[in-house]
């Protein structure tokens, strides 16, 4: 494993890795899915696959908000800002995601007023500072981020700021997990549950996965030791034939979640009947929209949007990679037409996307070794 000397307790890491090897039945092949893109990033960053036995496969899940957003929604958001009176605001993660006519950053180069914000509250501040213009915030994210958008909309209403709207693309994690479990080509043994989403929703919403689907799930932190401990907890359950929800990340995640955050979401949002996910298709009740009481701040009410579906390039196999059916390097475009510098699919854009993570931490390493061995 790389960067070993940076860890707080390398000895504990080694002990935990040894416990994983002891618990893993050599006659079995384990497929464990980490749902959250932050975990995917950490797994590659720390080279955790190097310490796991060969019969434990980590499958990368759908928990990267940038990756699961269909291209049509990016085009819809950009179409709103074709009016020169509109200021387009979004997190930095969105800026290089390609739409049909280019990314937000490329639109900025062509003269669109595109601004990076680090908080939806700052998009609201831009609206206050520019009363003659309209500020649209392109909201993405799971339940970790949705409460902050909700509170920002509540503040806009309280303060009567009317030159502000939100293009809501918030999605919810549970229906995505359900879609993956329903997928016929998927076989999984258990889940490493998302960390920061769970600070909001708590651990109860995962109980059906353990009880009805009989897949153990362990909510996990982001350090190497957290992830390895979560794998130990999953293997122990599998060994005993148990299936329960466990919380490895107790120092941050309360079992019941954050009620104030859930209240804010309920006040502002309602479930969409269905929403399209890149790679997973339409999933019912899997996304949030702004409710009637906040319609004045809903960009989809305020603007006419094309609402066109844009299919991904045929050769790109983002869907199969996103579902864990293919590994990133098995996609035909990986590392050739599609690279982090010139991404074709969204999994290559965000560093949480499994293709970019694999490219940055595995592919570059292998390429460097190959070039080294051919030059010496």
């Amino acid at each position, binding site marked *: 494993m790389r960067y070993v000397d940076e860890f707080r307790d390398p000895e504990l890491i080694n002990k935990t890795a040894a416990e994983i090897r002891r618990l893993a039945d050599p006659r079995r092949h384990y497929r464990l899915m980490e749902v959250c893109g932050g975990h995917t990033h950490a797994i590659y960053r720390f080279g955790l696959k190097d310490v796991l036995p060969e019969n434990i496969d980590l499958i990368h899940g759908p928990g990267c908000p940038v990756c699961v957003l269909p291209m049509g929604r990016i085009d819809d958001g950009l179409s709103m800002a074709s009016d020169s009176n509109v200021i387009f605001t979004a997190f*930095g993660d969105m800026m290089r995601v390609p739409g049909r006519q280019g990314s937000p950053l490329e639109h900025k180069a062509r003269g669109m007023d595109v601004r990076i914000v680090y908080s939806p509250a700052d998009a609201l501040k831009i609206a206050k500072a520019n009363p003659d213009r309209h500020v649209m915030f392109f909201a993405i*994210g799971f339940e970790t981020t949705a409460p902050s958008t909700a*509170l920002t909309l509540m503040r806009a209403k309280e303060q009567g700021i009317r030159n502000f709207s939100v293009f809501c693309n918030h999605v919810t994690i549970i229906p995505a997990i359900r879609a993956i479990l329903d997928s016929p080509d998927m076989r999984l043994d258990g889940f490493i549950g998302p960390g920061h989403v769970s600070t909001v929703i708590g651990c109860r919403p995962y109980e059906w996965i353990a009880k009805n689907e009989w897949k153990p799930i362990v909510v996990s932190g982001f350090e190497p030791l957290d992830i390895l401990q979560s794998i130990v907890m999953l293997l122990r359950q599998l060994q005993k034939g148990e299936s329960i929800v466990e919380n490895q990340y107790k120092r941050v995640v309360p079992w019941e979640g*954050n009620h104030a955050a859930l209240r804010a979401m309920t006040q502002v949002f309602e479930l969409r009947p269905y929403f399209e996910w890149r790679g997973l298709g339409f999933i019912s009740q899997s996304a949030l929209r702004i409710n009637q009481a906040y319609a004045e701040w809903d960009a989809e009410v305020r603007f006419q949007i094309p609402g066109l579906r844009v299919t991904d390039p045929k050769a790109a196999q983002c869907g199969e990679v996103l579902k864990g059916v293919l590994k990133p390097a098995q996609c035909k475009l990986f590392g050739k037409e599609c690279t982090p510098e010139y991404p074709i699919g969204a999994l290559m854009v965000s560093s949480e996307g499994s293709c*970019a993570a694999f490219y940055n931490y595995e592919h570059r390493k292998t390429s460097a070794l190959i070039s080294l061995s051919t030059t010496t």
Partner: protein
Amino acid sequence: MNADEDDELLPGGCHMCLAIPGKIVEIFPDNVNAALIEVAGVRRRVDLGLLEDDRPVIGDWVLIHVGFAMSKISEQDALDQMHTLAMLGEADAAMQEIRGYGTEEEDKNYQSN
């Protein structure tokens, strides 16, 4: 492999999943939801609205996500979290995010206060 070089190659940073630990140094008397937090010497304004059921006080540590405090944590957990971000190569991105909160006018107000 040099970790710093590695980071420069990353296409964006994973802000969507970043949670940054900060210490509350001031709560504004006219607005209980507005607080000043300090992260590695940088002070910025964050919103405490998501913690209204269990309000933090000055001196408490919180995890911050996109400008909002999302949970109270212990000082030790805050230090651990900063360590995690450093290990993930995200410490610079976290500081960039903290510096990015707020507008320039507000920063001037802080300095003049």
